[in-house]
């Protein structure tokens, strides 16, 4: 481990977590500080998920599972964003029992942008403004009935603005 970077160690740890977490929970030997399955259930800030470069790692840490594409998740995003510092994105869904909506940008230095908890009685529809470093896929994840559904759209960025 001495010749690997911290970054690599971290990535490797994430992979191990993702693969083994279900089995480990079953055996009651979970000893990580981050608990993916619980992260979305309580109000604690998902600190580790907000450190991931890769969207799949962020989703795994946030939810402990993967999403399937669904045409019931609708994303409203521009085809071309002239200013990457302010890209208006909104998401809505016709799915019921929605508990959270999450926005990710694949090519940003940190993939996870925002994750919104939707309690009972709040409509599954959110608008916000995000930063994009360059042309990238934008991914919306909707958690509904304990399952994850996603929509993906490429947004072309003419002037990058990760941080503005």
């Amino acid at each position, binding site marked *: 481990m001495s010749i690997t970077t911290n970054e690599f160690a971290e990535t490797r740890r994430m992979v191990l977590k993702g693969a083994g977490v279900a089995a480990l929970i079953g055996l009651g030997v979970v000893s990580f500080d981050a608990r993916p399955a619980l992260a979305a259930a309580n109000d604690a800030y998902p600190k580790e998920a907000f450190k991931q470069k890769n969207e799949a790692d962020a989703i795994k840490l946030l939810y402990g599972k993967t999403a399937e594409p669904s045409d019931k998740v609708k994303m409203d995003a521009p085809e071309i964003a002239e200013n990457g510092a302010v890209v208006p994105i909104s998401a809505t869904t016709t799915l019921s029992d929605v508990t959270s909506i999450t926005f990710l940008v694949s090519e940003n230095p*940190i993939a996870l942008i*925002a994750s*919104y908890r939707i*309690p009972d*009685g709040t*409509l599954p529809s959110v*608008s916000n403004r995000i930063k994009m470093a360059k042309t990238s896929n934008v991914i919306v994840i909707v958690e509904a009935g304990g399952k994850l559904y996603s929509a993906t759209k490429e947004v072309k960025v003419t002037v990058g603005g*990760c*941080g503005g």
Partner: protein
Amino acid sequence: MASSIRVRATSNGETTEVQALIQHPMDSGFVKDAKGEIIPPHFIQQLTFEHDGKPIFLANWGGGVSKDPYVKFAFKGGKKGDDLKISWVDNKGATDSTTAKIQ
């Protein structure tokens, strides 16, 4: 000091639409200043909305949310004149909160 949070909440009798605009630099920690030095991360991590003592919306944010963030959502059950409590906390532990009336 004026609040960093501006909120507009309007009820149509059935649902209440909430729009919030917050003044915050939302520095991601990936941008350099004019001298070429990294601007340290400084961004809101959590934003909560409460109505009638219950959370109606919770945002977990990273540095990828735009400067002076904006968010819009809607919930069922609010009435004109009801209070809406909004608060945020950033990565440096700073907080702000405000209460807005539903219109």
